[in-house]
Structure formats: C-alpha cells, structure tokens
C-alpha cells in the first residue's frame, strides 16, 4: 500500500454568503485509504468536497494535491488530475444514456477511445451492477441505481482520489451492503486509490472506512475508530491529522 500524502488541506476556511462553513480545516489524506467524513447535516461535509473540487472559493488556506497547489488549478481542470466526484444528488444527465454519462468525463479529458474503453471495463468490473443499466437513459434510474452510476462516473476519471457525497443516504439496506462491497472491492482492485465518503450517520458505514473524521460546525477532528484497519503494527503514524 502506498502511503504518500495525496491530498493535504491546510487551515482551509470557506465562507458562503459571509457565513463561515469551514473553519481552518486541516487534514492529510493518504493514497490507498478509505476515509469517512461524518457529521450532521449542515456541518460542512458537502462544502468540504466542493472545496476540493474548486466549486467554492477559499477564504484562506491551502490545498495540496500530490504536493501541487490545487488552488492554481481551475475547477474544470481538477478532474483531469485524477479526482472523481459523485455529488449528493445523483446527477446523471437525463438526455444521455448511462454509458454516455460514464464516458463523458474521460472524453472531455481528451482520453483516446481505447483508454476510455479500458476505464469503463475496470469500472464495470468493480461496480458490476452498472452493466445491465448501460443502455438506459440517465433519467430512468432509481435512487440506488443513481448512486451506483454516480460512483461509476466518479471512478471513470478519478484514478487517484474519489469523493463520494453521502452515498448511503436513502439506500435500502441491501443496496447499502452492495455499495460497501463495491467500495471494498475497489480498494482491493486499486490499492493506491484514496476514497473519501461523507455520511451523516456513521453507523451506516460499518467497517468500510480505514479512518473516520468528524466534522462539526465546519471543524474537522480525527477519530481512529478502526485502528485495526491500519494494522496493529503501524501505530507510529497517524495517517490523518486534524486539528483546528
């Protein structure tokens, strides 16, 4: 497992309409980990992910991705760095088929047909539930299917980091298990991928995350609930540090 710091947030503060949403957030996310960000509604989970994607303006702070200043990268150029994003509301484009939806970010990034085919094959391997849906319209999905499709689309372009905003929200228990299995499967298949999952109800996540971060009123703090996931013989480093 590759343990380099992939994404580092330093004293990141964000205001939305002059109300502070994130307050001096500090976090280091490493490759190969599944990280859960748990917090109540309105705590700043979605804003945290949108900040990483460049969709909101920072008031202060710095974000480094693979050591490079992410603030100098335009929002629309961040996907190309290998960051995939699945927003909370499943936003499949309704006039395109699921397959077209999945291919779109890769095509926009300028990948060749062969490369896109390869990513699609990998994605379908991990999220096998998508296979029968490929030909369907983006408008014709149930909530759970939409979550799966959004995961798939994030995976298509997110070769290094994927951000999943409340994927378990509204999933039936059976589907939630399927979704967790897909995430674990993904970790096996792509051991260097860093996965960030937000959730308001931490218990839904079960043993999926390697690390859990709590977010409350825009402040992030680390909780290492699942120490076993890191391995008992590696307690010397804390893969995630958060302080405010």
């Amino acid at each position, binding site marked *: 497992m590759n343990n380099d710091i992939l994404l580092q947030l330093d004293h990141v503060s964000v205001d939305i309409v002059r109300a502070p949403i994130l307050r001096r957030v500090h976090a280091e996310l490493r490759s190969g980990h599944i990280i859960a960000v748990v917090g109540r509604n309105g705590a700043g989970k979605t804003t945290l992910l949108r900040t990483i994607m460049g969709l909101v303006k920072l008031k202060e702070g710095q974000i480094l991705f693979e050591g490079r200043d992410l603030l100098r990268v335009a929002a*629309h150029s961040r996907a190309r760095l290998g960051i995939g*994003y699945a927003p909370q509301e499943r936003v499949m484009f309704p*006039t395109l088929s699921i397959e*077209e939806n999945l291919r*779109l970010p890769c095509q926009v990034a300028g990948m060749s047909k062969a490369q896109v085919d390869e990513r699609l094959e990998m994605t379908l391997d991990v999220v096998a539930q998508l296979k029968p849906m490929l030909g369907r319209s983006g408008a014709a999905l149930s909530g759970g299917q939409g979550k799966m499709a959004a995961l798939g689309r994030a995976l298509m*372009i997110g070769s290094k980091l994927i951000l999943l905003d409340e994927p378990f929200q509204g999933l039936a228990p059976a589907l939630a298990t399927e979704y967790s299995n897909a995430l674990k499967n993904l970790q096996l298949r792509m051991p260097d991928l860093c996965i960030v999952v937000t959730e308001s109800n931490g218990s839904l996540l079960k043993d999926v995350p390697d690390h859990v971060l709590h977010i409350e009123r825009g402040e992030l703090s680390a909780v290492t609930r699942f120490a076993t996931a890191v391995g008992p013989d590696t307690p010397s480093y804390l893969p995630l540090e958060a302080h405010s």
Partner: protein
Amino acid sequence: MSSDILILAMLDGISYAGLLFLVALGLTFIFGVVKILNVAHGSLYAFGGYGAASLGLWWGQGSDSALVSVALLISGAIAMGVVLGTVLMLLLKKFQDRDPILQLLVTFGAFMIFEDLQRMIWGTQPYFVADVVNQLGTSELMGVVYMNYQLLFVPGAALAVYFLLKWFLNSTLAGRQIVAVTHDREVATALGINARRIGYLTFVVGAVLGSLGGALASPTTSLVPGIGADMIVLSFAVVASAGLGQITGALITALLIGLSRSFCVYLAPEFEVVMPYLIMVLVLLIRPQGLFTVVQARKI
C-alpha cells in the same frame, strides 16, 4: 370560407413559424446554458436581416444563381451572429456572477445601442432584397400558387436546423458538454467541463440562430427600424409558452403561434397582433411553467 384561403393561411403560417422557430430557438438555447434572457436577441434578428440584405446587394446583384443567393444569406447570418454574439458575450462577462436582473438590463441596454447602430449603418429607408425568392420560383398546391422560398426553403431550413441541433447536442462531444452544463453547471465543471467556454459556444450558436432567422426573413419582409423589437417580443411569447430551454417545445409552439396568427390575418385581421400574446397568456394561466417544462425552482 374558401379552401384557397385555408391553404394560403396554412402556408403563410408554416413559413412564418419557421422564422419564429429559428429566432425563438436561439433565445431559448442561450437561456438554457447561460441562464440569461437575451433581450438583444432581437437585434441579432435585425442585423442578420440587414447583413444578409447588404451581402445580397454587394455580391448577389446580376447573379441568377439561387445557390449564390442562399449562400450569401447564410454566410451573412453566420458572420453577424458570430460578431454580435461575441460582443454581447464580452459585455456580459463583465457582469457574470451578478444579479440576473442586472444581466437582463445589460442585454436590454445592448439592444438599444444595437438599434441605433442599425439606423446609423443602414438608415431608416426600408431595405428589400428579394432576388432569391424569384430565383427559387413558385409551385402550385391545390390550386394555390405559392413561392417555393416560403413553401419549401424557410420551413425546410427550420427543420434542418432543428434536426441538426438535436444531433449536435446528442451525438457530439461539444453538444454533450452543452447538455451537461445546461443540466447542472457545477457537476459539469467537476467532471472537467469548462463551463465558460461552453457558455461562449452556446451563446454564439444561439446568436447565429437568431441572425439566421433575420436573414431568412429578409427576402420576404422589408427591413425597417424596429423589426428587432417586434421579433424579440414574439419569440419571447414562443419561448415563454413552450417553457424556457425547450427545443422541441419551441418548434411546436412556434407552429401553433405562426398558424394562429396567419389564420387571424385572413379571418379576423383585427386580432392578428394580439393573437400570439393571447396564446401566451392562456398557456401561462394554465401552465405557468410553460407547455413543455417540468416544474422546477424559479431563478428570477
């Protein structure tokens, strides 16, 4: 009522609907992506008409070829659309992320300036360049002799644009990016789409559609100051009745308004002017979101 009048009214209506559709399509298309109701779209119609007429006067005189005339019409429209669309886009760039009402006012201001510019360049004398209409000849349809230009060319061009645009949006990468930005700008950006560039592309395509409408109208309408204002109001009636951002809806509504207007001309001329608005008011009373829109939160 004789059947001749019925057929005449129908043909007039279809031909007029073709023009209306092109202009309304540009308006609704721009709104879909940029979320701005472009009042200056009426100027694009007027400039498209004048531009095409001027090209026809400069280069089309003495030529008998309908192909040359058609090529001049279309190239005049595209040139005007690209130039004015770019000017408008640069202007609006200064006001992006501001109140939508302010952006609306900016396009209104631009409309007034373009209107005066048009008087400055072409004067107030009516322009009329109808070579292409004669070159394309006439046909007889159930006893009614009708110009091929209005019978076939204008509706044909409108349908061709409709299908071309559908194909462009569904099957090309640029088109799919437009669809993505229209649906959700933020998600599209997160997927790597440069929404600003796509916005510019959309604006120019929409502007060309507006000016194409003007260019195609120019051989059968005399160009006078104020035609832009008439058209923007009418095409707004189409767009509002169809629902903003609805392409197929705009086609059907343009046909509805075009036909009812031309039937009015023959049967109850005193209602001609009020007819499109009557339809709009009726539609908006029953379905405030427009005929073809699914309900969603209001922006303005």
